[in-house]
């Protein structure tokens, strides 16, 4: 029997995208596939070639969009987010907010380290300059102490 396997996979994806609960979408697709096989067998028994029988069996199911539209009329088949979109949006927003807050708390001690790492060349230059200045100053003070000590 010629397979329309990829079309059944697309059909299940279409049902999922329409908001049908995954279990329901899977079961719908399985029964539609059974129906397709019955229709195919009927067409072959009627004397049609396998390709014709497969085409007629697939067409008999009707438009995948129509199937999804009828399924979407039954709230019992829809996912919670499609039945209650406002509530689902609020919960999703809260979840994002909490996740971002946790990220900020975890990341904040690392911020100074990240800041310094991004400016390491400039910090290195200033460190060397400050070190050289300190050494020069120390040398001058030592020299002065020696001179004043002699005098």
């Amino acid at each position, binding site marked *: 029997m010629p397979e329309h396997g990829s079309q059944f996979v697309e059909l299940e994806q279409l049902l999922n995208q329409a908001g049908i609960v995954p279990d329901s979408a899977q079961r719908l697709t399985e029964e539609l596939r059974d*129906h397709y096989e019955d229709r195919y067998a009927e067409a072959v028994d009627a004397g049609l070639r396998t390709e014709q029988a497969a085409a007629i069996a697939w067409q008999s199911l009707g438009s995948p969009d129509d*199937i999804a539209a009828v399924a979407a009329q039954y709230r019992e088949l829809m996912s919670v987010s499609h039945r209650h979109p406002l509530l689902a949006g609020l919960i999703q927003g809260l979840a994002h907010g909490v996740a971002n807050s946790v990220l900020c708390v975890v990341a904040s001690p690392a911020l100074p380290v990240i800041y310094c790492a991004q400016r390491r060349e400039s910090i290195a230059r200033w460190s060397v300059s400050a070190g050289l200045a300190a050494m020069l100053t120390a040398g001058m003070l030592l020299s002065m102490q020696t001179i004043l000590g002699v005098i």
Partner: protein
Amino acid sequence: MAQTNPPFMSGVPELLVLRLLARQEMYGYELVKAVRVVTGEAIRLGEGVIYPVLHGLERSGALSARRKPVNGRTRVYYSVTPAGERRLEKLSSEWHRVRNGIESVLESPANA
């Protein structure tokens, strides 16, 4: 492709499904053929749409489903529950009301 009935016949698939399944338990393919035969081909449902109707009615408690092995395959058979029978009664009386209303319009004189 065969023409299916226009959108204003929403509710009709549920009425037909419940009525036919109230007589005997059937699986989807069998049910589609029964609709065609019993209505004398007057009503042709896009065959695939019968399944979301069946699942929706099952989820709402109007139908129950069971899997039966038949000739090496598993078929899902549907039957009407008591809640489904009450739903059928309600849909039938609504349909009779609509039908009577339409008949009144059709039988009335043209200029009434």
